[in-house]
């Protein structure tokens, strides 16, 4: 700044430090916020991860359980399911095995989950099973074991 009366420097300094003060406060505030955010973000991320991971795991576990029961039924009586249903059960099993458990950011996770849900619904519809996965499998009459 050019035109200042009497003591240009001190006045400038005063002005400068006022301006700087605001700037300094801004920077400090930003830094504090950023650091807090980092901590909170990690915490929230962990919570979200745990929640989603649990949900995905539970759903996959449910399908794994269904496939295991169906495979067991098949071993007891290999003619209890039609060849189409058997093929679908095998495909479901392959999908479960293909699911990238350890790589949640793998792009195919949604695709595999959708395919699993589709297969499950197709098999249930054919077997007239009123079983649905909605987080907590309800107890239902599993009709496919009685022919």
């Amino acid at each position, binding site marked *: 700044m050019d035109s200042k009366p009497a003591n240009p420097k001190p006045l400038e300094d005063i002005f400068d430090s006022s301006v700087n003060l605001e700037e300094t406060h801004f920077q400090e505030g930003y830094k504090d916020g950023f650091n807090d955010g980092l901590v909170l973000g990690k915490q929230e991320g962990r919570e979200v991860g745990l929640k989603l991971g649990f949900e995905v795991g539970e759903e996959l576990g449910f399908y794994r359980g269904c496939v295991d029961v169906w495979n067991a039924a098949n071993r007891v009586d290999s003619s209890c399911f*039609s060849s*189409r*249903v058997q*093929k679908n059960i095998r495909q479901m099993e392959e999908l479960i095995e293909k699911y990238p458990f350890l790589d949640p950011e793998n792009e195919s996770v949604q695709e595999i989950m*959708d395919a699993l849900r*589709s297969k499950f*619904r*197709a*098999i*249930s*519809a*054919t077997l*007239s099973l*009123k079983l649905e996965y909605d987080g907590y499998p309800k107890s239902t009459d599993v009709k496919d074991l009685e022919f």
Partner: protein
Amino acid sequence: MDLLEGNLELKEIQKLEGHTDRVWSVAWNPATGAAGIPAMFASCSGDKTVRIWQQTPSARCSASFECKAVLEETHNRTVRSCAWSPSGKLLATASFDATTAIWEHIGDDFECVSTLEGHENEVKSVSWNASGSLLATCSRDKSVWIWEVQPGNEFECVAVLQGHTQDVKMVKWHPFMDVLFSCSYDNTVKVWAEDGDTDDWHCVQTLGEPNNGHTSTVWALSFNSTGDKMVTCSDDLTLKIWETDSRIPQETDGYMPWRHLSTLTGYHDRTIFSVHWSSEGVIASGAADDAIRLFIENKDGLDMPEGR
């Protein structure tokens, strides 16, 4: 051909009463109406029932239909659409109660022999393929299901097809190929085909705005008798004609894509809900403007005598 010369006129010959709520859809039994077999059709309604009507062989009137059967106590909600199998022995009824019932026609009776469950909400349409071996259903849950008929009226779910992003309004099989067409609130028509014999069905073509497709909900579609042209109707107030290569596709060759041929605009000023291409080449459209219009193709394009 006198269809082009003459004045086509629609004349009401009978009014059939019986349903206690709106009638959504009707379907002629394909095994009737010729060779001395009296014509028969089914009507389905918001009153949760389906009625079967048959023409009495009457000397004087050309048509006197009476109600032969009422199919009730099965659906819990509106029956939205119905379709006869090509043999005329089975009738599939699609309902807002999320199920599709299969009725067998034995003698004068109809018996519900199977119920197909799986859709999450209202089933909008049902269609049999040309050989009667496959049945397709579609629903507000955006999916299209394909079922295979097994001996003993058992049905196996072959595929659950996801792809539409909104309510699927209608499904229809091609008149002789096992290729399935579906149309939706998402403004597109999707074509689904099987990969060889593997039960692996997927969408082989989507006809949307980029292909000169509709700009609003597509409500219905219908094929001409030779299966090389299709008409679709929409909430965008137009009818569109599509064609495909008329050569029969080779077994090994891929799939023949459909392309837009023509758009009929300005004939209806409200949503066109229904369209059908008759075996004699007349396209009939029904819209919310209370009009039924009939179209015939002339040398250059489509021409239109009308009815109301």
